[in-house]
């Protein structure tokens, strides 16, 4: 059955050239869906099978060279949880969908309000008072219908966090308050899932990656019992340019973690301040 499908993928694939002249074989979105229907599998399965046969789904063609076909297949087989679908989470979800992370587990119990319009990519005037998770799912489907989306219209709590994050290969912290970040970190450490965490105030922010054996957020914020609920963002707000760059940095970390390639920010903090172009990596230990 799988052999039949791969044979068919090879039959329909067409030769193409990258902008630098490199030859490759490509299948289109439409061909992918046609084959998925014919063999009664998900589009995702067709794309993974194609990549494993060194055929590039055209939607990922500009990811190639930086990612091998095997890397792209690994991303498609991965599941990432995005916790919080506001400023950081909206931009992060958009990037992960376009990158071709195969399963996106999208979590937010909130609805959009007008003050979200300045920075939250999935917030439009038409969607005010509508579910953030619902909007995120629709947007991902519009960008990449191969991606499997799990939608959770609920906030993370002690009693649901393990269930919601189950089977994640990585988790992105896109929350907007300090206490929930510690709750999330506790759950990811317990489950042994890598966590990437970013936070923003005004036009500055920071990002780090935390594995289960790491000290993690305590190195940044100290003990959670002594923390205010919110930080400097209460008086500075969150600017879209800062939120988006921090979300992009989070997705870069997640992709490195999924591919087990590159230098990850463990026990280090990348700090950004757009007022004077600061971008520095600091040692937390």
């Amino acid at each position, binding site marked *: 059955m799988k052999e039949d499908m791969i044979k068919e993928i090879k039959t329909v694939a067409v030769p193409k050239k990258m902008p630098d002249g490199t030859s490759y074989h490509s299948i289109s979105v439409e061909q992918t869906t046609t084959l998925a229907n014919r063999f009664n599998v998900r589009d995702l399965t067709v794309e993974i099978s194609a990549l494993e046969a060194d055929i590039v789904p055209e939607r990922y063609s500009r990811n190639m060279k930086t990612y091998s076909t095997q890397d792209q297949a690994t991303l498609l087989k991965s599941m990432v949880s995005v916790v919080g679908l506001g*400023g950081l989470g909206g931009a992060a979800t958009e990037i992960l969908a376009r990158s071709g992370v195969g399963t996106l587990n999208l979590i937010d119990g909130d609805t959009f309000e007008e003050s979200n319009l300045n920075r939250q990519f999935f917030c439009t005037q038409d969607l005010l008072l509508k579910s953030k998770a619902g909007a995120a799912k629709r947007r991902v489907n519009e960008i990449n219908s191969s991606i499997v989306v799990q939608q959770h219209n609920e906030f993370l709590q002690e009693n649901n966090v393990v269930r919601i994050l189950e089977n994640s290969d990585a988790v992105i912290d896109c929350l907007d308050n*300090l206490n929930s970040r510690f709750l999330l970190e506790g759950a990811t450490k317990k489950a042994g899932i890598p966590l990437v965490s*970013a936070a923003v105030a005004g036009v500055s922010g920071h990002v780090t990656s935390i594995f289960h054996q790491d000290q993690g957020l305590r190195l940044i914020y100290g003990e959670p019992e002594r*923390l205010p609920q919110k930080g*400097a963002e209460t008086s500075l707000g*969150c600017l879209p340019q800062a939120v988006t760059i921090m979300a992009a940095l989070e997705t870069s970390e997640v992709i490195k973690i999924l591919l087990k390639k590159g230098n990850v920010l463990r026990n280090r903090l990348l700090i950004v*301040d757009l007022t004077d172009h600061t971008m520095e990596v*600091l*040692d937390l230990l």
Partner: protein
Amino acid sequence: MKKHAKAHIHIKFFATLSKLTPGSAEHFPIDPGITVLDLFKQLEVPVDEVKLIFVNNKKGELTTELQGGERIGVFPPVGGG
């Protein structure tokens, strides 16, 4: 040579603390051997609003001594998104 020759540091405050940045932040004079806390008192930094201190790209403490030539970064708690 004077006993307490002046040295200089580079100091940067982030987010809500940026309003405390002194005019000569990139070449701020200090007495060698002062602590970060001494520096904060001099600049009237509200210490309870400080969450992270970096000295030369490494995490520092209020008790970290400064000799001159260091780069100091100071963050309040940041949690937005």
